């Protein structure tokens, strides 16, 4: 409804009264929805809105009238402004609430996992061991799994008739003068044959023993061999390096114990134990009630081994060690049966998810 702009005070006041009552009728505070509210806003406050027009029309009145009527109109406009804003906020909140409610999903449904791979616990354990040594400057070396007698035995000071061969039950290949290596010490020999001292190497890999498989024995298992050859290296260096390694692997407060042992290729030889980390030294099944857990074998390289590869034992000396990966993995993860590592049962593998690569 288009109105003529009032030009007299009376006309203006009449128009004002009409607008005021129309406003009351519109009942902005209870306006039903946003489109209606917008309609009201445009009708009164739009560029050509009734109140806008009334304010504009003041210019046709006398200065006195303007002074008295102007504030009146302005107040009405401001009040309407506030009412519209407030009602709009209310209506928008209500609208959002309804639409958010409508979009609601069942958040408790199971997640959709992208397929995610897992590394085998023997891989992560082997890498963990080898990486500690790599940080200590040991290079990664490998050798063949199929070996000859020389590299597996005789060059390691285990001659043919040596009783130590009894403890290395060996798989020989049919019709070939070859065997499956019984320890990673073979790589010591290969590395020394192909490189000049000084040396600092770590040789991880699979080894094979001709023995029946049970919870603690496997015919196939993994070792990490280490070898350091330098001038003036002694048993004390072996102790230092291995203690540093064990404290990195098992924690800085790890206590170590070095016991005499025998390996033909080292002299003196030692078996290294760590203080049981399952019990407070009082004894538990993990440490066979001794308070100590045997973790690796080591020793000063026997000069016969150095001579066998043409190193001068008067000039060079060193130490070597061998770590059973399965044994460490069993201790670290509480695996009770060694065969589990080779079962490839997904229920077993699923439990190793802390490291990916």
């Amino acid at each position, binding site marked *: 409804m288009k109105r003529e702009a009032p030009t007299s005070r009376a006309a203006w006041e009449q128009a004002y009264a009409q607008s005021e009552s129309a406003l009351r009728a519109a009942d902005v505070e209870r306006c039903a929805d946003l489109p209606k509210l917008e309609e009201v806003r445009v009708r009164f406050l739009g560029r050509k809105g009734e109140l806008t027009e009334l304010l504009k029309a003041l210019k046709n009145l006398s200065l006195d009238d303007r002074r008295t009527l102007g504030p009146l109109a302005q107040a009405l406009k401001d009040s309407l402004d506030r009412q519209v804003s407030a009602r709009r906020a209310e209506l928008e909140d209500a609208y959002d609430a309804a639409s958010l409610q409508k979009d609601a999903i069942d958040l408790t449904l199971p997640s*959709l996992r992208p*397929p995610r791979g897992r590394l085998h616990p023997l891989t992560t354990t082997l890498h963990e061991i080898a990486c500690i040594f790599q940080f200590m400057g040991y290079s990664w070396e490998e050798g063949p799994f199929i070996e000859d007698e020389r590299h597996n035995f005789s060059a390691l000071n285990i001659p043919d008739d040596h009783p130590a061969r009894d403890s290395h039950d060996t798989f*020989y290949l049919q019709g070939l003068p070859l065997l499956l290596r019984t320890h990673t010490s073979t790589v010591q020999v290969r590395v020394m044959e192909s490189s000049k001292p000084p040396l600092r190497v770590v040789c991880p890999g699979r080894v094979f023993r001709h023995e029946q498989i049970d919870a603690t024995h496997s*015919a196939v298992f993994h070792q990490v061999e280490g070898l350091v050859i330098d001038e003036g290296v002694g048993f004390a*260096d072996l102790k230092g390096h291995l*203690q540093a390694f064990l404290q990195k692997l098992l924690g800085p407060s790890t206590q170590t114990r*070095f016991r005499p042992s*025998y390996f033909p290729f080292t002299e003196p030889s030692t078996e290294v134990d760590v203080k049981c980390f399952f019990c407070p030294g009082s004894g538990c099944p993990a440490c066979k009630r001794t308070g100590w857990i045997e973790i690796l074998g080591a020793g*000063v390289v026997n000069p016969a081994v150095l001579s066998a590869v043409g190193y001068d034992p008067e000039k060079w000396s060193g130490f070597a060690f061998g770590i059973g990966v399965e044994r460490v993995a069993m201790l670290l993860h509480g695996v009770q049966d060694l065969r589990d590592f080779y079962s490839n049962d997904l229920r077993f*593998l699923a439990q190793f998810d802390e490291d990916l690569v």
Partner: protein
Amino acid sequence: MKISYNWLKEHLPLELPAAELAAHLSRLGFEVAGIARLGPAFTGVVAAKVASREKHPNADKLSICLVDDGSRTWNVVCGAPNVAEGQTVAFARIGAVLPGGFKIGKAKLRGVESEGMICSRAELGLPKDGDGIWVLGEGPALGADVLSLLGLADDVLDVEVASNRPDCLSHRGLARELAAYFRKPLKPLRLPLEETLGSYDLVRVEDGAACPFYSGRLIEGVKVGESPEWLKNRLEAVGLRPINNVVDITNFILHDVGHPLHAFDADRLAGGRIVVRRSKAGETLSALDHKSYDLPEGLLVVADAEKPVALAGVMGAEKSSVTAGTTRMILEGAYFIPTEVRRSSRKTRLRSDSSYRFERGADPEAAREAAARAAALILQLAGGRAAGACESSSPRAANPVVKTTVSRLNAILGAAFPSEQVRDALAAIAAESKGEADQLEFRAPSWRLDLATAFDLAEEVARLLGYENIPCRMAPLAPVAARTTPVEAASRRARSHLCALGLWEACNYDLLAEKTLTACRLPPEGPPRVADPLSEDWALLRPSLLPGLLKNAQHNLSRGADAVRLFEIGKTYARAGAGVTERWRAAGLLLGPLLDARWQAARASRAGFYDAKAVVEDLLARAGALGWARLGEPAAGRTPCDPLFHPTNSLRALLDGAPAATVGWLHPRAARAFDLEREGVVLFDADLESLAARAAPRARCAEFSALPVSRRDLALLVDKAVAYAQVEAVVRACAPADLQDFLLFDVYEGKGLPEGTKSLAVRLTFGRRDRTLTDAEIAQAVETAVAALARELGAKLRT
């Protein structure tokens, strides 16, 4: 080896509890695998006197005794008829524990309080000896512990002796080691032998090099019978079964001083003589273990005039052994060279306590004394008269002198042991040790065969002075850039790619069964074979990683898994001429839903060929130019595990034209063999070494265009036989350099299309770095492509 602590104490006085002894042995390098407490399992039972006995007021068969244990008297109700005043008895005090864990407490018996129990032998777990309570006889002090009183308890240590220390394979040997460690003297061994028969010429040794010492002694008039308790107890403590006094004595000496002996029945030796010689072709030995052995020619045997009566140092013949009827015997005390005994033992697969010691190295000088000690014991326990020993011996050089210095030993150890300590330690184990200032001269005793170098002495010093007294040294380490091998680097890359693609790493044995290969359609003649497999399941070295993975899939499906995605990185083996080659490979399989999204079926698609193809593309990416060939095409070459793959739905991946990997469906017959036919298994198998040989270059960042690109979609109708790769190749061949990307977004066959055709929807993306292409240019390029497709493949645009 089982060591009885009581027995050990006969050689060296030791007071330590067994557990502490075990700790010391461990520090010396002898691990103790266990300690078994022997003897009756009771505590708190003491010797006590029956001070008085009265009848129980309420029971006919019970009596009330006052029992004096030396400290006070106790009121005890006893049911045994033989209890009498004045007896010394075994009295279980309140708190005592009897066998079976039965704990003695106060009890009321028919209204009378009993403060303990008078025990019978049976109640203490001892062999029964008459009825009623055990009467100890006069002598025991009141209150003395019955266990220790009667020497009934013993600790048996299971000691592990390394193969270089045969000298410690006996009680005296270990006592000698402990004597050096504790710096205490050994008790002397004395058992005089009276020789009353003169000497007989009984022995001829034909090979003095193999048998440097042999003594045979005739003993006449022996009475073979049961051994006395003490001897039986000793043997039983170390797990031996008593047989008869003579045999028991030889076994006792073996475990006492460590030297193996043998006793022959002299009347069952043809000619009554002994010859140490080589076995001849066709000879056999019916040994004491009731088995017969064919002796290969040339083994060292002890023979009578006709035949071998013992495999020297290993085992004697059953027929000539000492039995209940023996009266004349010949006692052998000999030293055989270790390699001879080892060879005999290996060739016949016959082992014994004797061969175990001889092949590790017995004390060459101990045979004479051990045999004399045994003879004296035989006279003592079995009676008879002994002749002088008939000996054959070859001169033997003493152990050589090791000359070294204290500083050399300290250098080997990285230790700073004072000279006196080192000298003192070595003197405790030496036959002879001297030297001034830094100098050391050391001669090992005859029983130590393992002390020939400074390193050997360094170990002795470390053992006797304590490994814990050597410092932990981290000498300044020259920083070195640690290298790795190309294969290891490639393995790590492969592992990270495969894990990122959702595969789990498996780890299988390198050995497998012939039937597994057959199930995989792989020829069992190909792979190398193990000479003496543990079982059928371990006969062959794997020619491929896939058979193991297929077994894993089968295993997991049978245990309820519905999706299996596994890979393995490992070695595979093949025969190559006179040798064997081993090669690193990476293989894997996929089956079942890729996403665990059962409740959103639309997203749960199953793994198929194209998923496995993606894995291979990912593995090979950036190692070279990737190409493909169908199996059977010349470019594909052949690999040993091709028969495992579906012949048509499999591809060889080529790197720079050379075969590098295979991907495809599992051959249906192999699928059947593994119960996987309904699963839809896809496999891949990549040669890791060819990847390792082509280390991927480091990623280089290239600038990319900020200008918009233009896309054009084409729906092409082609003959069904036209391969997608042909379409892409034709478009790429004729397209301008401005073609940035070629994308297939739909493949359709069926309703609405002419018979024998399919529709391929492709999206071509054009763009330039320097400017935006005009519509005319793009239209021109599309037109060229469509024309080429029509010309070369008969493709039509669908409208």
